[in-house]
Protein backbone atom coordinates (compact mmCIF):
# COMPACT_ATOMS: atom_id res chain seq x y z
CA UNK A 1 0.00 0.00 0.00
CA UNK A 2 2.90 2.33 0.80
CA UNK A 3 4.04 2.12 -2.79
CA UNK A 4 0.59 2.95 -4.11
CA UNK A 5 0.26 5.98 -1.86
CA UNK A 6 3.71 7.23 -2.80
CA UNK A 7 3.01 6.84 -6.49
CA UNK A 8 -0.38 8.40 -6.07
CA UNK A 9 1.08 11.48 -4.36
CA UNK A 10 3.71 11.71 -7.07
CA UNK A 11 1.11 11.39 -9.82
CA UNK A 12 -1.10 14.00 -8.16
CA UNK A 13 1.81 16.40 -7.97
CA UNK A 14 2.49 15.95 -11.70
CA UNK A 15 -1.16 16.19 -12.65
CA UNK A 16 -1.64 19.30 -10.53
CA UNK A 17 1.29 20.99 -12.17
CA UNK A 18 -0.09 20.23 -15.64
CA UNK A 19 -3.85 20.45 -15.25
CA UNK A 20 -5.09 21.61 -11.85
CA UNK A 21 -8.78 21.25 -12.74
CA UNK A 22 -8.44 17.65 -13.90
CA UNK A 23 -6.61 16.49 -10.80
CA UNK A 24 -9.72 17.19 -8.69
CA UNK A 25 -12.01 15.11 -10.84
CA UNK A 26 -12.10 11.38 -10.07
CA UNK A 27 -11.80 9.15 -13.11
CA UNK A 28 -14.88 7.08 -13.99
CA UNK A 29 -14.54 3.62 -12.48
CA UNK A 30 -16.94 1.76 -14.74
CA UNK A 31 -20.41 1.50 -16.18
CA UNK A 32 -23.68 -0.17 -15.44
CA UNK A 33 -24.22 -2.83 -18.08
CA UNK A 34 -27.19 -4.78 -16.77
CA UNK A 35 -30.14 -3.43 -14.84
CA UNK A 36 -33.64 -4.67 -14.06
CA UNK A 37 -36.34 -3.78 -11.55
CA UNK A 38 -35.72 -1.36 -8.73
CA UNK A 39 -32.02 -0.43 -8.72
CA UNK A 40 -30.31 2.79 -7.71
CA UNK A 41 -26.88 4.34 -7.40
CA UNK A 42 -26.28 6.11 -4.09
CA UNK A 43 -23.72 8.89 -4.43
CA UNK A 44 -22.95 11.27 -1.57
CA UNK A 45 -26.43 10.95 -0.08
CA UNK A 46 -28.22 11.31 -3.42
CA UNK A 47 -30.07 8.43 -4.99
CA UNK A 48 -30.14 8.14 -8.77
CA UNK A 49 -32.01 5.43 -10.71
CA UNK A 50 -29.56 2.92 -12.20
CA UNK A 51 -29.59 2.82 -16.00
CA UNK A 52 -27.63 1.03 -18.68
CA UNK A 53 -24.48 2.99 -19.50
CA UNK A 54 -24.59 4.95 -16.22
CA UNK A 55 -21.03 5.82 -15.19
CA UNK A 56 -20.03 4.77 -11.68
CA UNK A 57 -17.26 6.24 -9.56
CA UNK A 58 -15.37 5.21 -6.45
CA UNK A 59 -17.51 5.77 -3.32
CA UNK A 60 -20.75 4.90 -5.16
CA UNK A 61 -23.13 2.31 -3.70
CA UNK A 62 -25.34 0.11 -5.85
CA UNK A 63 -28.60 -0.83 -4.17
CA UNK A 64 -31.57 -2.91 -5.28
CA UNK A 65 -35.15 -3.38 -4.12
CA UNK A 66 -37.12 -6.60 -3.95
CA UNK A 67 -37.22 -7.24 -7.72
CA UNK A 68 -34.04 -5.38 -8.64
CA UNK A 69 -30.69 -6.48 -9.98
CA UNK A 70 -27.72 -4.65 -11.47
CA UNK A 71 -24.34 -5.48 -12.99
CA UNK A 72 -21.31 -3.27 -13.67
CA UNK A 73 -18.06 -3.67 -15.56
CA UNK A 74 -15.18 -1.61 -14.16
CA UNK A 75 -12.45 -0.16 -16.35
CA UNK A 76 -10.00 -2.90 -15.33
CA UNK A 77 -12.56 -5.56 -16.52
CA UNK A 78 -13.67 -6.41 -12.96
CA UNK A 79 -17.35 -7.33 -12.94
CA UNK A 80 -19.70 -7.00 -10.01
CA UNK A 81 -23.40 -7.76 -9.89
CA UNK A 82 -26.05 -7.91 -7.21
CA UNK A 83 -29.39 -9.62 -6.90
CA UNK A 84 -32.59 -8.36 -5.21
CA UNK A 85 -32.57 -6.57 -1.82
CA UNK A 86 -28.82 -6.15 -2.07
CA UNK A 87 -26.20 -3.47 -1.71
CA UNK A 88 -22.53 -3.21 -2.62
CA UNK A 89 -20.18 -0.25 -2.26
CA UNK A 90 -17.29 0.50 -4.60
CA UNK A 91 -15.23 1.81 -1.73
CA UNK A 92 -12.12 2.61 -3.72
CA UNK A 93 -10.96 2.17 -7.27
CA UNK A 94 -7.73 3.20 -8.97
CA UNK A 95 -6.66 1.78 -12.32
CA UNK A 96 -3.68 3.52 -13.85
CA UNK A 97 -1.39 0.59 -14.62
CA UNK A 98 1.12 2.83 -16.43
CA UNK A 99 1.68 4.72 -13.17
CA UNK A 100 1.41 1.71 -10.87
CA UNK A 101 -1.83 2.99 -9.34
CA UNK A 102 -3.97 -0.04 -8.65
CA UNK A 103 -6.59 -0.42 -5.96
CA UNK A 104 -9.98 -2.02 -5.64
CA UNK A 105 -12.02 -2.23 -2.45
CA UNK A 106 -15.56 -3.58 -2.64
CA UNK A 107 -17.84 -3.74 0.38
CA UNK A 108 -20.63 -6.27 0.25
CA UNK A 109 -23.22 -4.73 2.53
CA UNK A 110 -26.22 -7.03 2.15
CA UNK A 111 -27.95 -9.50 -0.11
CA UNK A 112 -26.36 -11.53 -2.90
CA UNK A 113 -23.51 -10.59 -5.20
CA UNK A 114 -21.21 -12.04 -7.83
CA UNK A 115 -17.65 -10.88 -8.49
CA UNK A 116 -15.35 -11.68 -11.41
CA UNK A 117 -11.79 -10.43 -11.01
CA UNK A 118 -10.17 -8.13 -13.57
CA UNK A 119 -6.77 -6.71 -14.41
CA UNK A 120 -6.07 -5.27 -10.95
CA UNK A 121 -6.32 -8.76 -9.43
CA UNK A 122 -4.01 -10.01 -12.17
CA UNK A 123 -1.41 -7.25 -11.88
CA UNK A 124 -1.48 -6.71 -8.10
CA UNK A 125 -3.64 -9.25 -6.23
CA UNK A 126 -2.87 -7.59 -2.91
CA UNK A 127 -4.41 -4.36 -4.19
CA UNK A 128 -7.84 -6.06 -4.23
CA UNK A 129 -9.84 -6.27 -1.03
CA UNK A 130 -13.37 -7.59 -0.82
CA UNK A 131 -15.06 -6.88 2.48
CA UNK A 132 -18.14 -8.40 4.06
CA UNK A 133 -19.38 -7.30 7.49
CA UNK A 134 -17.69 -10.33 9.09
CA UNK A 135 -14.55 -10.92 7.01
CA UNK A 136 -12.15 -9.79 4.33
CA UNK A 137 -11.65 -11.81 1.16
CA UNK A 138 -8.32 -11.79 -0.63
CA UNK A 139 -8.32 -13.07 -4.20
CA UNK A 140 -6.03 -14.68 -6.74
CA UNK A 141 -7.77 -14.52 -10.14
CA UNK A 142 -11.19 -15.43 -8.99
CA UNK A 143 -14.92 -15.63 -9.52
CA UNK A 144 -16.94 -15.49 -6.31
CA UNK A 145 -20.49 -15.44 -5.06
CA UNK A 146 -21.08 -13.60 -1.80
CA UNK A 147 -24.14 -13.51 0.42
CA UNK A 148 -24.62 -11.21 3.39
CA UNK A 149 -27.72 -12.14 5.36
CA UNK A 150 -29.47 -9.35 7.25
Amino acid at each position, binding site marked *: MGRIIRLWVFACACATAATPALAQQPAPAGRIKVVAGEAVVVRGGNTVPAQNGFVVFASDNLRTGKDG*RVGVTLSDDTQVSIGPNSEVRLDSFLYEPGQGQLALVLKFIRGTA*AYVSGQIAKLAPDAVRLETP*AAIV*GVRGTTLAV*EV*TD
Partner: protein
Amino acid sequence: MPKPAVHTPQPAPESPNLVVLLPDPGKTTAGRAVVSNDKGSVELNEAGAAVLVSSGQPPRAVSIESQAVQRKFADALASLPAPPEHFVLFFRFDSEELTDESRRLVQQVLVAVKQRPDPEVVAIGHTDTTGAAAKNIELGLRRANAVRAILIDAGLASAAVAVRSHGEATLLVHTADNVFEPRNRRVEITVR
Protein backbone atom coordinates in the same frame (compact mmCIF):
# COMPACT_ATOMS: atom_id res chain seq x y z
CA MET B 1 -16.01 -2.43 18.35
CA PRO B 2 -14.54 -2.91 21.86
CA LYS B 3 -14.25 -6.55 22.83
CA PRO B 4 -15.00 -7.83 26.33
CA ALA B 5 -11.83 -8.73 28.19
CA VAL B 6 -13.38 -11.85 29.70
CA HIS B 7 -14.68 -14.69 27.55
CA THR B 8 -18.44 -14.92 27.78
CA PRO B 9 -20.58 -17.55 26.08
CA GLN B 10 -20.87 -16.55 22.43
CA PRO B 11 -24.37 -15.77 21.20
CA ALA B 12 -25.66 -17.79 18.26
CA PRO B 13 -24.00 -16.52 15.07
CA GLU B 14 -26.00 -13.74 13.47
CA SER B 15 -25.90 -12.47 9.92
CA PRO B 16 -23.57 -15.10 8.56
CA ASN B 17 -21.71 -14.17 5.39
CA LEU B 18 -21.34 -16.85 2.75
CA VAL B 19 -18.50 -16.80 0.23
CA VAL B 20 -18.46 -19.37 -2.59
CA LEU B 21 -15.61 -19.83 -5.05
CA LEU B 22 -16.94 -20.33 -8.59
CA PRO B 23 -15.25 -21.47 -11.81
CA ASP B 24 -13.80 -18.59 -13.82
CA PRO B 25 -15.92 -17.55 -16.83
CA GLY B 26 -15.69 -20.09 -19.63
CA LYS B 27 -13.60 -22.47 -17.52
CA THR B 28 -14.15 -25.37 -15.16
CA THR B 29 -11.29 -24.35 -12.89
CA ALA B 30 -11.35 -21.65 -10.24
CA GLY B 31 -8.81 -19.19 -8.86
CA ARG B 32 -8.12 -18.89 -5.18
CA ALA B 33 -9.54 -16.81 -2.36
CA VAL B 34 -8.78 -16.44 1.31
CA VAL B 35 -11.55 -15.46 3.71
CA SER B 36 -10.18 -14.05 6.92
CA ASN B 37 -10.93 -11.97 9.98
CA ASP B 38 -9.14 -11.50 13.29
CA LYS B 39 -10.31 -14.95 14.45
CA GLY B 40 -8.91 -17.00 11.61
CA SER B 41 -8.75 -17.62 7.91
CA VAL B 42 -9.87 -20.25 5.41
CA GLU B 43 -8.54 -20.72 1.90
CA LEU B 44 -10.87 -21.59 -0.97
CA ASN B 45 -9.04 -23.32 -3.80
CA GLU B 46 -11.49 -25.31 -5.83
CA ALA B 47 -14.72 -24.51 -7.61
CA GLY B 48 -17.68 -24.90 -5.28
CA ALA B 49 -15.67 -24.45 -2.09
CA ALA B 50 -17.53 -22.28 0.42
CA VAL B 51 -17.00 -20.47 3.68
CA LEU B 52 -19.48 -19.24 6.28
CA VAL B 53 -18.39 -16.49 8.62
CA SER B 54 -20.15 -14.44 11.29
CA SER B 55 -18.85 -11.34 13.04
CA GLY B 56 -16.45 -12.22 15.83
CA GLN B 57 -16.32 -15.90 14.81
CA PRO B 58 -13.63 -17.70 12.85
CA PRO B 59 -14.53 -18.44 9.20
CA ARG B 60 -15.37 -22.10 8.62
CA ALA B 61 -15.39 -24.19 5.47
CA VAL B 62 -18.84 -25.53 4.60
CA SER B 63 -20.12 -27.69 1.79
CA ILE B 64 -22.95 -26.41 -0.31
CA GLU B 65 -24.48 -28.14 -3.31
CA SER B 66 -23.97 -26.45 -6.63
CA GLN B 67 -27.72 -26.45 -7.24
CA ALA B 68 -28.20 -24.52 -4.02
CA VAL B 69 -25.54 -22.02 -5.11
CA GLN B 70 -27.22 -21.60 -8.49
CA ARG B 71 -30.57 -21.05 -6.79
CA LYS B 72 -29.34 -18.64 -4.15
CA PHE B 73 -27.27 -16.57 -6.54
CA ALA B 74 -29.41 -16.96 -9.68
CA ASP B 75 -30.27 -13.25 -9.97
CA ALA B 76 -26.80 -11.98 -9.09
CA LEU B 77 -25.14 -14.38 -11.54
CA ALA B 78 -27.65 -13.57 -14.28
CA SER B 79 -26.75 -9.89 -13.82
CA LEU B 80 -23.04 -10.29 -14.55
CA PRO B 81 -22.38 -8.32 -17.75
CA ALA B 82 -20.96 -10.04 -20.85
CA PRO B 83 -17.25 -10.64 -20.20
CA PRO B 84 -14.95 -8.01 -21.73
CA GLU B 85 -13.17 -9.11 -24.93
CA HIS B 86 -9.62 -8.24 -25.93
CA PHE B 87 -8.07 -7.88 -29.38
CA VAL B 88 -4.67 -6.84 -30.65
CA LEU B 89 -4.30 -5.32 -34.12
CA PHE B 90 -0.85 -4.89 -35.66
CA PHE B 91 0.42 -2.08 -37.87
CA ARG B 92 3.02 -1.49 -40.59
CA PHE B 93 6.34 0.16 -39.70
CA ASP B 94 6.06 3.84 -38.76
CA SER B 95 2.48 3.87 -40.02
CA GLU B 96 -1.14 3.82 -38.90
CA GLU B 97 -1.90 1.30 -41.61
CA LEU B 98 -2.99 -2.16 -40.42
CA THR B 99 -1.12 -5.28 -41.48
CA ASP B 100 -3.11 -7.47 -43.88
CA GLU B 101 -3.66 -10.10 -41.20
CA SER B 102 -4.99 -7.57 -38.70
CA ARG B 103 -7.22 -6.04 -41.35
CA ARG B 104 -9.02 -9.40 -41.43
CA LEU B 105 -9.30 -9.44 -37.62
CA VAL B 106 -11.19 -6.11 -37.64
CA GLN B 107 -14.35 -8.03 -38.50
CA GLN B 108 -14.15 -9.94 -35.21
CA VAL B 109 -13.83 -6.68 -33.30
CA LEU B 110 -16.93 -5.36 -35.04
CA VAL B 111 -18.86 -8.54 -34.20
CA ALA B 112 -17.90 -8.20 -30.52
CA VAL B 113 -19.04 -4.57 -30.55
CA LYS B 114 -22.34 -5.30 -32.27
CA GLN B 115 -23.23 -8.13 -29.88
CA ARG B 116 -23.41 -5.70 -26.98
CA PRO B 117 -26.41 -3.52 -26.20
CA ASP B 118 -24.26 -0.66 -24.94
CA PRO B 119 -20.73 -1.22 -26.24
CA GLU B 120 -17.74 0.61 -24.89
CA VAL B 121 -14.31 0.37 -26.52
CA VAL B 122 -10.86 1.38 -25.30
CA ALA B 123 -8.09 1.45 -27.92
CA ILE B 124 -4.52 1.87 -26.68
CA GLY B 125 -1.84 2.55 -29.29
CA HIS B 126 1.68 1.19 -28.97
CA THR B 127 4.87 1.38 -31.01
CA ASP B 128 8.20 -0.38 -31.19
CA THR B 129 11.28 1.39 -29.81
CA THR B 130 12.47 2.71 -33.17
CA GLY B 131 12.72 6.52 -33.04
CA ALA B 132 12.16 9.07 -30.28
CA ALA B 133 9.80 8.30 -27.38
CA ALA B 134 7.83 11.56 -27.89
CA LYS B 135 7.31 10.82 -31.56
CA ASN B 136 6.15 7.32 -30.65
CA ILE B 137 3.47 8.69 -28.31
CA GLU B 138 2.08 10.51 -31.34
CA LEU B 139 2.38 7.46 -33.58
CA GLY B 140 0.59 5.31 -30.98
CA LEU B 141 -2.21 7.86 -30.82
CA ARG B 142 -2.52 7.92 -34.62
CA ARG B 143 -2.84 4.13 -34.58
CA ALA B 144 -5.49 4.20 -31.86
CA ASN B 145 -7.37 6.90 -33.78
CA ALA B 146 -7.21 4.79 -36.95
CA VAL B 147 -8.98 2.00 -35.04
CA ARG B 148 -11.48 4.50 -33.66
CA ALA B 149 -12.27 5.72 -37.19
CA ILE B 150 -12.92 2.15 -38.37
CA LEU B 151 -15.34 1.55 -35.47
CA ILE B 152 -17.18 4.83 -35.96
CA ASP B 153 -17.44 4.12 -39.71
CA ALA B 154 -19.06 0.82 -38.75
CA GLY B 155 -21.70 2.66 -36.74
CA LEU B 156 -20.34 2.89 -33.19
CA ALA B 157 -21.11 6.17 -31.40
CA SER B 158 -18.00 8.34 -31.18
CA ALA B 159 -18.45 8.78 -27.42
CA ALA B 160 -18.22 5.00 -27.01
CA VAL B 161 -14.59 4.78 -28.16
CA ALA B 162 -11.78 6.06 -25.95
CA VAL B 163 -8.26 6.29 -27.36
CA ARG B 164 -4.94 6.44 -25.57
CA SER B 165 -1.30 6.01 -26.44
CA HIS B 166 1.46 4.36 -24.46
CA GLY B 167 4.00 5.03 -27.24
CA GLU B 168 6.98 2.76 -26.68
CA ALA B 169 6.42 2.51 -22.89
CA THR B 170 4.51 -0.80 -22.81
CA LEU B 171 6.19 -3.32 -25.08
CA LEU B 172 4.60 -6.66 -25.93
CA VAL B 173 8.05 -8.04 -26.75
CA HIS B 174 10.76 -6.55 -24.58
CA THR B 175 13.59 -5.05 -26.61
CA ALA B 176 16.35 -2.49 -26.18
CA ASP B 177 15.81 1.04 -27.50
CA ASN B 178 15.76 1.52 -31.28
CA VAL B 179 14.80 -2.03 -32.11
CA PHE B 180 12.58 -2.78 -35.09
CA GLU B 181 9.89 -5.19 -33.73
CA PRO B 182 6.63 -5.73 -35.63
CA ARG B 183 4.87 -7.29 -32.63
CA ASN B 184 5.24 -4.06 -30.67
CA ARG B 185 3.46 -1.98 -33.34
CA ARG B 186 -0.04 -2.52 -32.19
CA VAL B 187 -3.32 -1.27 -30.81
CA GLU B 188 -4.77 -3.19 -27.87
CA ILE B 189 -8.54 -3.09 -27.89
CA THR B 190 -10.90 -3.85 -25.03
CA VAL B 191 -14.59 -4.24 -25.84
CA ARG B 192 -16.85 -4.00 -22.80
